[in-house]
C-alpha cells in the first residue's frame, strides 16, 4: 500500500485508514470476523442480492437488511479467551 505520491504508509496509519487491515499477529477470530463483516456489508450494499435472499427467506428486504446490519456487531461471537489461543 502506498499513497498517491508513492510513499509507503506506516502500518498503524494504514490500519486506521483502511477498515479490516490485518497485522502480523492477527488472530484467526479477528480475521474471520473481518471477512464476515465485509460480506454482510456487501450483501446490504447490493440490492439485487438482498432481494434474492429475501425471496428465499420470505422476509421483507428491510428486515433482512436490518438483520445483516445488526449481525455485523459480532458475526462470529466472542473471541476465544487469550489463554486458550
Amino acid at each position, binding site marked *: 500500500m502506498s499513497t498517491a505520491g508513492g510513499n509507503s504508509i506506516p502500518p498503524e496509519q494504514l490500519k486506521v485508514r483502511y477498515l479490516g487491515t490485518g497485522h502480523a499477529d492477527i488472530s484467526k477470530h479477528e480475521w474471520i470476523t473481518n471477512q464476515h463483516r465485509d460480506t454482510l456489508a456487501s450483501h446490504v450494499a447490493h440490492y439485487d442480492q438482498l*432481494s434474492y435472499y429475501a425471496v428465499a427467506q420470505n422476509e421483507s428486504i428491510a428486515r433482512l437488511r436490518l438483520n445483516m446490519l445488526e449481525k455485523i456487531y459480532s458475526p462470529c461471537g466472542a473471541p476465544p479467551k487469550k489463554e486458550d489461543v
Partner: protein
Amino acid sequence: MSEEKVVKQISPDLKLLDLTLKNASAIQSSLMGEFTAEGSQEILVARPGGALEVYKIESSDDGDNDEDEDEEEETRVWLKMVMRVETKSIIRSIETVRLTGEKRDLIIVGSDSGNTSVMDFEGGQVKILHCPAFGKTGCRRGTPGQYLAKDPKGRAFMISAIEKRKLVYVLNRDSSGQSTIASPLEAHRSRTIVLDTVGVDNGYDNPIFASLEYQYPDEEDLLDGMSSIEDGVQKEIAYYELDLGLNHVSRRWAASTHPSACCLAPLHGGADGPSGVLIGGEDYIEYLHEGMTGDKIICAIPRRKLHPPNKGILITHLTVHKQKKSKFFALAQSELGDVYKVSIRLDPDDKTKVAGITASLLDTLPVANGLNVSKLGMLFIPAEFGDHALYQFERIDVEGDAPSCSSEDTIQAFKASGATEKDFFNTVNASKMAATFTPTTLKNLRSIYTMESLAPTTGVLIGELAGNEVSPQIYTLNGRGPRSSLRTLRHGAAVTELAVSDLPGTPGAVYTIKDISPDALEKKREVDKFIVVSFADATLVLKIGETVEEVGKESSFVTNAKTLACAALANGKIVQVHPSGVRLISDGKAQQWDCPGLKRIECASANESQVIVALAGGDLIYFELDPTTGVLVDKPPIDMGADVSCLDIGTLQAGRSRSMFAAVGFRDQSVKILSLEPNKLLTQRSSTALRARPHSVALQYMKSSGDNADDLVLTIGLDDGSSVRTGVDAITGSISTSPTGRFLGARPVSVSRITIDSTAATLLLSSRPWISRPDPKSGKNIMAPLSYAPLDHGCSFSSDAIKEGIVATSGTTLRILSVESQGSALGTEDEAFNSNKVDLRYTPRQMCLHAAGTQTDAKKLVLAVVESDYNDYGLEKKNAMGFDPTGSGKNKEDGDGMDIDSDEEKDSDEEDEDDKKARVTPIRGPVPDLPGHWGSCIRICDPSNGCSTLDCVELPENEAAFCCASVRFHSRGGEALLAVGTVSGMTLHPMKYKGSFIVIYRVLAGGKLHLLHRTPVEDGPVLALAHFQGRLLAGIGQTLRLYEIGKRQLLRKCELRGLPTMVKTLHGAGDRAYVGDLMHSMQFVRYDSATNKLILVANDRLPRPITCQELLDMNTIAVGDKFGNISVLRLPRGADARAVDMSGTRALWDSSRDNVTPRLETLCNYYVGEVVTGMTRSSLVAGGSESLIYVTATGRIGALVPFTSRENVEFYTELEACLRKDAPRYTGREPQAYRSYYAPIKNVIDGDLCEAYGKLSFEEQQKIAQQIDRNVGEVIKKLEDTRNALL
C-alpha cells in the same frame, strides 16, 4: 423437451453481445420531487442495474381535453416515463436536494464508483453538476455511498458508509449563480455501523444530520475483558452538526433508542414544526429530539390478530408529509405491508414541542421500498416484489374508527408495569397493549394505477406453447408469496379489441373518410365519418355515429364496384375512386369523371386536395382540387412505361395545400418519387430498386429526433413479406441511400398510416401485424409487432369514443382495435413485451415442460410449476386459522388467487367491479411463530389456454417442493412422469430438515396429477432433478444419484458422493451430467454405463455460487451466479478422454485428488449487475437463430447473442471501445470496470453501452463514426439490425 434440444458444436472463439430485452422492473428506492420542470410532480426511481428514471403523474383530465363534456367519464391517472438514465454502476442511494431559492430539485446519487454525483435533470436532459471522488470503487464497508441525507434547506448533504465514514459536502453558489461544492468535511467515527441517516430540519440554524448507528466492540477490548458482546447492539440516534461558520462537523448529541430501531424520518422544523426525528423499529415508533424533557414519546403499533405475540413487527419505512398550514402527518409501513398513519400532537402551549404521537392503521398495501406522497393526495408504492402501484387517498383522518395506539397509553402501561425501559419495550408487551385488527381490502385508499414489475423472476421458459401463434412466448415465474404469478410475455404491443362484426364477403380493402363538416371542425377533433369496405365487386359504406350503420345508395357512393381510394376533400366533398372512374360526392349529389376508353383504373390514392390514379398499362392521371370552383381538375395523363402496382400521394402538412410528392411502386421492382409541383408535374425525382415487387407504399411525415421539421418517410411493403423504410428529402425528393429492410412475415406487406399518441406511425400487415414509429428519445425507429391475429387490411380510425383506433379486416370480419399505449412508451425497448399473468399460491421455485397424457395421440404439453413459501402455513392450516387472503370479509373455501374472479358474484354492475378491483390488496398470511413452516403446492398449467390451472396439489404440512423434472423412464415405456423433489420441516438458519423425498406423479390426459409413489432419500435435501438416459438423476446434498423407477419406490442405480457443498442445478446430455454446486461452481460428471459408475470429469477453478445453468453444447455450459455474473465454461480438449476409467482404479479421477481433476476453461465472463436466476437457450422469432435468454431476481430479461460474423465482432468491439471513453459517466463509474465487477469481462460486448450511441449528440456520434470508419446512419442501422434480428 429441453433435454432433447439439438446440441450442436459452437465455434471455439465464442463472442457474445449482451442486449437488454426488458429492463429490470424492481425499484430499489424512489423519491418525489420536481426534476425536469418547475411545478411538475415527478417520481424519481432507482432501479437495480443502475438506471434512474423519472415518472410524471399524468391524468386524463388535465391537458388539452379539459373542455370536453365527457365529465361522467372517470379520470384516468397513469405514470409516464419522462426520462431514463443508465448510469452503468450500482446505485446504492439517491437523494434530492433543492438549493436555496431554486424551484427544482437536484439529484444526488451514491454509487459504487467512489464518487458522489450531483445531477440536474432540467428539461429531461442530464447535466452532471458535480462528481467529486472520495474513495475506492466498489460497495465496500467503509466507502461512503450507502446512505445520503440532505439538509432540508439545501445547504449541505451527508454521504455515509455502512461503517465509520461520513462525509459532509457543503453546497453553495458562486457569483454567477452556478452551484458549487466544497471539499468534504469528515465526520468519521470508528467501529460505528450506520443503519439510516436523515437531515434534521431546524430552519436556518446550522444543518444537522441525524444518524441511527451503533458501535461494535473493539477486538482488543473484548480480549482484555474491557467490553463484552453480551450487551448486544445498543443503538443511538446521533446528531452531527455542520458548523457553517467554523466549517467543521461535530457529533453534537446522541441518545439511545430502543434496540430494534430501523428507520428514520425527520419532522418539519424551524417555523413549520417541532423538528426532531421519528424512529421506526420493531413494534414501536418513537419520537426523539435534542433537548426533550419529560416522558419518552413512544407508541406501540396496532397488530394483526393472527400475528404471534412473540414475533415482532418491524416498521421498515417512515415518511413525513406536510399538508397545508404547517399541518403534517407521517406514514409508516410494517414488514407485513400494513401502513399506519402516525399523527403528531403538538403541545398546545408550545408549538415547538411534541406532546404525543398516535399510530392508526390506514390500510394494507404491498410491502414497499418507500412511501411517496404527492401533493395531490396520491401515494406511490414501489413494491419490493410484484407490481408497483399508485393509490389515491380517499380519507386520511382515520384516528376515530381505525385501530390506534397512542404514546400516552404506551407510557402509562410502561409506568404501571414498573419495569425498566430495557425490559418493558419488547414484543410481548407491545402485543399486550396494542390494538388488534384483521387486514381487509382497502378502506381509505384506492388503487388507481399499477406499474408492471416482474421482480423477482425465478424461472424462464421459452417456446411456442400457446399452439396457435407465430412467435414463441416467454413464460416467467414471478413474485413472492401472495403476489406470485406465472406470466406469459409476448413480443409486441398489446391490442384491445373494441368491436368485431361479420361482413358478407372477404373484403379487398378498407378505408375511413374523415368528418370535415364545419360542425366537426369546430370541435377541433379529427373524427371519421365513414368506413368504406371494398369487396371484389361491391362497396359497403358504413356511417359512424353513436353506432356504426350501413348506408346504401343514398350515400351516392358507387356500391356495385370495388373502391380503390376515397377521401374527404378540403371543401367538404368526398372523392371515391372505383375502377371505371373518379366520383365526387357532395350532399348526396355526385359528379363523375370516367376513364377514357376501355381502360380501367388499377390503383389510386387521394388526400384532401389531390387524387392520383394509375390506369392499366402505366398511365398516371393527376387531379387537383381547384379551391375556387371546388371541382377536381384533371391533368393530362403521363405514361410511366411500366405497370403500377401501388401508389401513395402522401399527406398534407399543416398549412400546405398540396403534398409535394407521390410515391409510385412499379411491377419492375422499383419505387419512384414523383414531383407534384404544378410546373414539374409527375416528373421523377428519385427512384429505388427493390429485391421484390412493391405491394404497398406509404409516404408520411414523422417526428424527427431533432426539435425541428418532421422527416418525410417512405415505407414500402414488398410482395416477399418484408418492408423497406427510407427517408425522403422533403425538398429535393431524393431517397436516402441506406434503407432499412426487415422481414415481417409470410405474406405481402400492406402499409398504411395510423396515429399513436398523437404522432404519426405506420401499420404494416403481413402474417403478423406490425407498427413502426420513430422514438424521438433515442432517435431510432421502432418496429413492434402487435399481439393480435393476422390482419388483411387496415387503416386508422377515430371516433368520439375511440380517439386513436385501427379499423382492420381479417377474413370476413371487420374489427376495430386500439393499441395500448397510454402510460407507456409503446414500442420502446422497455415496452417491447406485453404480458398476461395468472396468480399462483406460493412463491414459484421451478417449472418444467411436461407431456401429459398416456396415449400418444392425446399428448398435450403442460407446464408443471412447483411453489413453496418459507415461514408460511399451508392452505388448510391458514383456512383453519380463519385467515382470509382476499380480506373481503367472506372466507372462501379455496383461497386460491386464480379462482377469485370466477367466484365473484356476477350480478354486481360494472362500476362495483371496478371499485372492488381498485380495493383488492395482497395480504400476507399469518406468520408462524417458529421457523420450519412451509406452504407448498405443485401446479399443472395449460399454456394453450392462457396458463389456466389444470390441477394443483397441496403438499403435506411443512413439506416444500423445490424442483421438478419431466422424466421418461425407458423401463416404463414412453410415458413421461413428473418427478418432484421435496424437503420437509426445513429451517434455513441453521440449515436443518426432517426428511427429503422424490415424489413421482403421472400426469393424466386432463392434466390431473396422480401420485405414483414417494421415495425418501437420505444424505441431503433434493434441490435438483434431471432426466438422464432414461433414468432420473437427482442432486441430493453432496451426492449425485441415479434412480430407476420401481413399483413402490425409486431404485438406486449408482451414485457419486463427495461433491463440494450441495447440488443446486443439474443437466443431463448424452453420457454427461452437468452439476452446478451451491458454492463451488460446475462439475462435469460422466456416466460410464459399462461399469455403472459416475465419474467426475472436470471442475471449475473459481468457486462460483451457481444459481442457474444452460447447456450450450456437449462441452460448453453457461452459468449464472449469485453475484450477478454470467460465465461460459468449457471442458478443455481431451479432458474427457482421460476420465475413461479402463482399469477401474477410480482413485485417479477421484475428487479427493483435486489437483489432477482437469479444470474448466472460462470462455466468457460478464457482470450483469443483478442476480441471474434463470437462463434458457432459445430464439424469440420463429426460425431465428438461438441466443441465451436470461432473467434476474430483479426482473430484467436479457439476451446474450452469439456473433455470427467477424465483421460484426470488429464493429462492436470498436464501437464499444469508443463508447467506453465517450459515453457520459453519470456516476463517474468506468463502464469496463463495472462490467468486470467480480471478474474481468471476457468475450462479451456490452450491447446496452453500444446502444447509448443513439443518445449522444450528433457531433459526438459523428466523431465516433469517423473513428470506426463509418457514417452515423450506418452505425445506427447496424444497432437496429442487431436488435431486429433478435426480436
